[in-house]
């Protein structure tokens, strides 16, 4: 007991969960300010910007999914759009079958996203590193091909048009961009809160451990594959829910919505976030802003602009080093 009392002092000073990114008062304040601004956005900006903001929230959801796999579990995924696609088709098919209730679609999409992740986990979790990147990419492309092949269900490359979502049974469907945005924002905040809770669990700690030193984790007796599977399922569920939001925003869905570029943008957002969930969300917003606001000013070269963002992020470290030596050289 005496040992406990002597160590009690440093324990209270230190973050009890021992995580690096535990919310501090200031960052809680920043988050609250961002959320309030996001809620007030429809009153401030035009409808076009609001629809872009909705798109950004969808990509932000996918970026959280990518960050769970890439930043937390340390496995670079280039296929999260596949699970988004599964969720999106679930939501779209439900909508076309008359189930226009948004939250129902969201829950069903999350479930099928997780189910798709469960089916593919035995394949992709056999690999690590670059091979994981290759295999997740392959899985996603196969999913996209299947979506365009199964024209009877998915409408093939022509895609599916869906009726607008309703928030509550009996209420009017959401047709105005501002309301759709608010619905998506609330859903996103709920998902973000769930992800934040997940990051405080033992599972998240084990996933971070797997990213850091997998043999050590095994030597401690942890069931590494089971933990990775659980993490991958959670990421699939988040991506699937993002799919439902995508359908709510666009009221249209085609195989192109689950293509390589979507997965790549999610990975880019996660890389911008450098391991942090908030960073990934900010990265997604930045990426969509560059593509849809800055990209339109470049005369249709949004793709090239995005390519430049990819390169900027990839070369940030050599660039920083170069700048540092330049600055030091200038002083001398």
């Amino acid at each position, binding site marked *: 007991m005496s040992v406990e009392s002597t160590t009690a002092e440093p324990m209270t000073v230190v973050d009890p969960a021992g995580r690096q990114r535990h919310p501090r008062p200031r960052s809680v304040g920043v988050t609250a300010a961002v959320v309030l601004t996001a809620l007030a956005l429809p009153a401030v900006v035009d409808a076009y910007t609001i629809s872009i903001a909705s798109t950004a929230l969808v990509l932000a959801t996918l970026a959280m999914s990518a960050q769970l796999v890439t930043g937390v579990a340390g496995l670079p995924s280039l296929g999260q759009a596949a699970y988004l696609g599964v969720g999106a088709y679930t939501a779209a098919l439900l909508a076309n079958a008359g189930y226009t209730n948004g939250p129902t679609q969201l829950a069903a999409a999350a479930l099928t996203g997780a189910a798709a992740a469960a089916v593919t986990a035995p*394949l992709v979790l*056999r690999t690590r590193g670059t091979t994981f990147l*290759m295999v997740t990419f*392959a899985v996603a492309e*196969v999913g996209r091909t299947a979506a365009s*092949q199964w024209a009877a269900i998915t409408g093939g490359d022509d895609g599916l048009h869906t009726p607008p979502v309703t928030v509550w049974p009996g209420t009017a469907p959401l047709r105005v961009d501002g309301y759709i945005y608010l619905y998506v924002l609330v859903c996103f905040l709920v998902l973000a809160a769930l992800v934040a809770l997940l990051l405080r669990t033992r599972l998240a700690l084990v996933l971070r451990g797997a990213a850091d030193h997998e043999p050590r984790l095994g030597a401690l007796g942890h069931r590494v594959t089971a933990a990775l599977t659980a993490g991958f399922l959670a990421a699939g569920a988040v991506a699937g829910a993002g799919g439902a939001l995508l359908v709510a925003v666009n009221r249209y869905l085609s195989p192109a919505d689950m293509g390589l570029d979507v997965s790549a943008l999610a990975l880019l957002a996660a890389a911008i976030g450098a391991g942090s969930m908030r960073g990934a969300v900010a990265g997604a917003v930045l990426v969509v802003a560059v593509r849809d606001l800055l990209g339109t000013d470049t005369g249709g070269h949004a*793709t090239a602009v995005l390519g430049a963002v990819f390169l900027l992020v990839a070369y940030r*470290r050599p660039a920083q080093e170069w700048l540092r030596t330049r600055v030091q050289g200038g002083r001398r």
Partner: protein
Amino acid sequence: MTYAVTAVDGIAFGLLLFTVAAGLTLIFGVMDVLNLAHGSLYLAGAYLAYLLSGGDLLRLGAALAVGVVVGAAGGAALAAAMRPIAGHGHLDQALATLGIAFVAADGFTTGFGGAPLPTDPPRLLAGSISLAGHGYPIYRLLFIAIAGLLAIGLHLVITRTRHGVMLRATVADPAMAAATGINTRRVQGAALAAGGVLAVTAGVLGAPLLGPAPGVDTTVLVLSLIVVVIGGSSSIPGTLAAALVVGQVQTVGVIVAPSVAPFALLAVLLVTLTARTRTRPAVRPA
């Protein structure tokens, strides 16, 4: 019987994938870089073939010659681009090559528009011959022959020549290869240039089979990545076998069972990966 003809198509498609995947494997093996812009190199070759298509053999020859230059320059540029981020992890390399692929895709749509462009083989090779009672395009048979020879030639260069041995030594242990006197940086540059040449050549020759269109870069990239994973990225015969399997699944499979064919690829992938993890020890000897 139609299946037999489709199977020949599958061989042609498989060899096309082999040519692309061999380049990808080379780059991956020698520099540990996963080139996600590899499909863009194929697409560059295909657009090149489109620009010079429909004429005589001379135009195809010109397209090939330009293709070799473009491929070598592309590979060399990739080598230069990857050097500053070597050792910064695979994620940065993936982002950089994705960025290159995005910029290239934008360039292609700007230059050639968004529609698929049909690319004809040279007039002399445009006809078809009777193959067991079915008309079969001469060009495809010729493609099979050329790509087959390329595969054999590549295998011989890598296994039999001095440069092939130096290449494999560099792949096996770059530091020790350098300590044996091999200029590993030059070997890496040459291998990346060769990888680029293979991809662009595949595009030039393969354009009549898989013509230039937006998105073809992704299709070629993912299929050749699957070939690399199945083939085990260590030997030319392994890559060739994997490419032929994928080629059959993508042609015969699509006709026999169109909705299942995509998943057949995943099944092959799962079986290979499972078999491989079984045979590999968990820990390297210390």
